[in-house]
């Protein structure tokens, strides 16, 4: 026991019981036998009068049970000099005899019987106990909400909401959230723009609670915060820009299925808690910890609904061409996410192309238009290819590289078509490019492929990016740290 506040165990034989447990009731005669021959200390979790004979010490606040990791009653512990030497759980005659050094225990009882769950691990109590006994690990300021005050309205009034209600981050909820990671609450995660303070795991957990996350989502949120808040991704720039971009989080790996993320029908839409709340938690971190709010440092002219949350999973278990994370150097099968500075999704409809060459040319035509057909190389894009489109390529044996290569072939335009003023349109590339024979739409690696969506519909989605590379934002991929 490392916790200095843990109640020490008395020397001798310690037994933890509760009346509600039939096995505990069954072993009462054994406890009487032990009381006659060893230094016995019985702790009772529920009824202080149980077992009566021998008399028990009430563990009413469950401190002994909590700090000594009691998961089953009865638990029998041999203790010396305040420290545990051995333990057994449930009723097992041989184990009890060996541990206590007393022979012929419970002659009328069956040789063994499993115990019951300890109250200290009761799901209805465990969050409360975590707050009661683990308080010292949290360092955030406590804010008391007056009895007459509505906590949801109070959080709106303080500016902590993205426009939708947020869950009150009580100590119980934050402690429960922190169970989702093995990292210490005080661990520094990242430096959050625009105010550039270092955030720790605890503060990320607070935003995760407010966003509506479950504890098992927390490692994804922590990884997203790390991936977004650095010079490479440049979250500060995303905030400050007048363009309608936000961090788009693309997740992959078996962990996405373990936490119930949606990579299928409506993957980019509403209705899935993990998709929606992981992306939202990242944005709440930036808003509330970083101080990045619309109308202040966030100067977006229009914004987009994805700035509430834009997070989805790739269907990597069925993808014909792997994942974006693997394209970015992560080992296959590893849980990972990519953050991308992106706008809201825009559609690509092609219900007629059945040959891969046709579909590649068709997709290229659509991609040429992102941001502006005459602007090139400045913006990356992610294609979220639906299964029906992907199948056209997969059936022809085209892998990721082949698809990207073939699409890129159709994305080369002569400078004369792109230059400012061409086709009567002022926007375009500078005059210096007018004589270029062929100019690509995307920089190398700037067009990225992902796989998600429902099984019906010859559609894909395109997520257009912001200023790319060293001047703006680079996509950042990280393995999820648990």
């Amino acid at each position, binding site marked *: 026991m490392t916790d200095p506040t843990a109640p020490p165990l008395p020397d001798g034989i310690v037994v933890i019981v509760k009346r509600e447990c039939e096995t505990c009731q069954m072993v009462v005669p054994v406890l009487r036998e032990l009381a006659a021959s060893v230094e016995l200390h019985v702790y009772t979790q529920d009824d202080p009068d149980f077992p009566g004979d021998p008399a028990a010490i009430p563990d009413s606040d469950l401190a002994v049970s909590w700090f000594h990791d009691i998961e089953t009653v009865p638990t029998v512990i041999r203790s010396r000099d305040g420290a545990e030497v051995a333990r057994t759980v449930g009723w097992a005659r041989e184990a009890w005899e060996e541990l206590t050094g007393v022979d012929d225990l419970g002659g009328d009882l069956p040789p063994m019987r499993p115990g019951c769950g300890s109250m200290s691990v009761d799901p209805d109590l465990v969050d409360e106990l975590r707050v009661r006994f683990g308080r010292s690990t*949290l360092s*955030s*300021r*406590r*804010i*008391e*909400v*007056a*009895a007459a005050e509505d*906590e949801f309205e109070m*959080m709106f009034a303080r500016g*902590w909401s993205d426009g939708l209600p947020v869950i*009150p*981050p*009580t*100590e119980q909820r*934050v402690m429960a959230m922190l169970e989702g990671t093995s990292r210490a609450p005080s661990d520094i995660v990242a430096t*959050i723009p625009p*105010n550039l*303070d270092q*955030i720790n795991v*605890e*503060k990320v957990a*607070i*935003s995760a609670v*407010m966003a509506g996350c479950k504890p098992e989502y927390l490692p994804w949120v922590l990884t997203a915060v790390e991936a977004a808040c650095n*010079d490479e991704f*440049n979250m*500060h*720039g995303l905030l*400050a*820009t007048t363009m309608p971009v936000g961090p788009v989080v693309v997740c992959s790996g078996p962990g996405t299925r373990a936490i119930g993320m949606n990579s299928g029908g409506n993957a980019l839409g509403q209705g899935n808690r993990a998709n929606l709340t992981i992306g939202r938690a990242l944005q*709440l971190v930036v808003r*509330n*910890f*970083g*101080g990045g709010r619309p109308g202040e440092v966030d100067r977006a002219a229009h914004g987009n609904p994805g700035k509430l949350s834009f997070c989805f999973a790739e269907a990597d278990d069925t993808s014909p061409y792997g994942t974006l994370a693997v394209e970015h150097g992560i080992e296959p099968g590893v849980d990972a996410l990519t953050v991308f500075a992106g706008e809201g999704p825009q559609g690509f409809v092609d219900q007629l192309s059945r040959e891969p060459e046709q579909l590649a040319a068709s997709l290229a035509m659509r991609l040429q238009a992102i941001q502006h057909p005459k602007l090139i190389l400045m913006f990356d894009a992610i294609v979220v290819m639906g299964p029906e489109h992907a199948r056209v390529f997969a059936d022809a044996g085209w892998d990721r590289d082949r698809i990207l290569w073939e699409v890129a072939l159709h994305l080369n335009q002569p400078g004369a078509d792109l230059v400012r003023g061409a086709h009567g349109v002022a926007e375009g590339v500078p005059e210096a490019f007018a004589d270029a024979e062929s100019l690509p739409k995307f920089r190398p690696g700037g067009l990225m492929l992902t796989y998600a969506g429902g099984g019906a519909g010859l559609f894909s989605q395109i997520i257009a990016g*912001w*200023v790319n590379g*060293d*001047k*703006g*934002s680079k996509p950042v991929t990280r393995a999820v740290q648990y």
Partner: protein
Amino acid sequence: MTTILDPTSERTIVERERLARPASLEGLTVGLLDISKPRGDVFLDRIEERLVGIGATVKRYEKPTFAKPAPVDLRHEIATECQVVIEALAD
């Protein structure tokens, strides 16, 4: 009563007073910071002409990219070399 945890950074913001506005720019060094937006230089060229015309010394600076905050070294350089700074934000 509900107790909740503060989601903010809990930092106390230090308010710094602005320097007094100079009565005249004559004889002062004015820094012109181009944030690297297209045509910001057109605007700053004209401002430079006007400032030189009223007796100011002008120094020109440029951010590596408009999409990121000015690097610390650049901010320090401007602060040590100039009394006044004008930042061009426009496209």
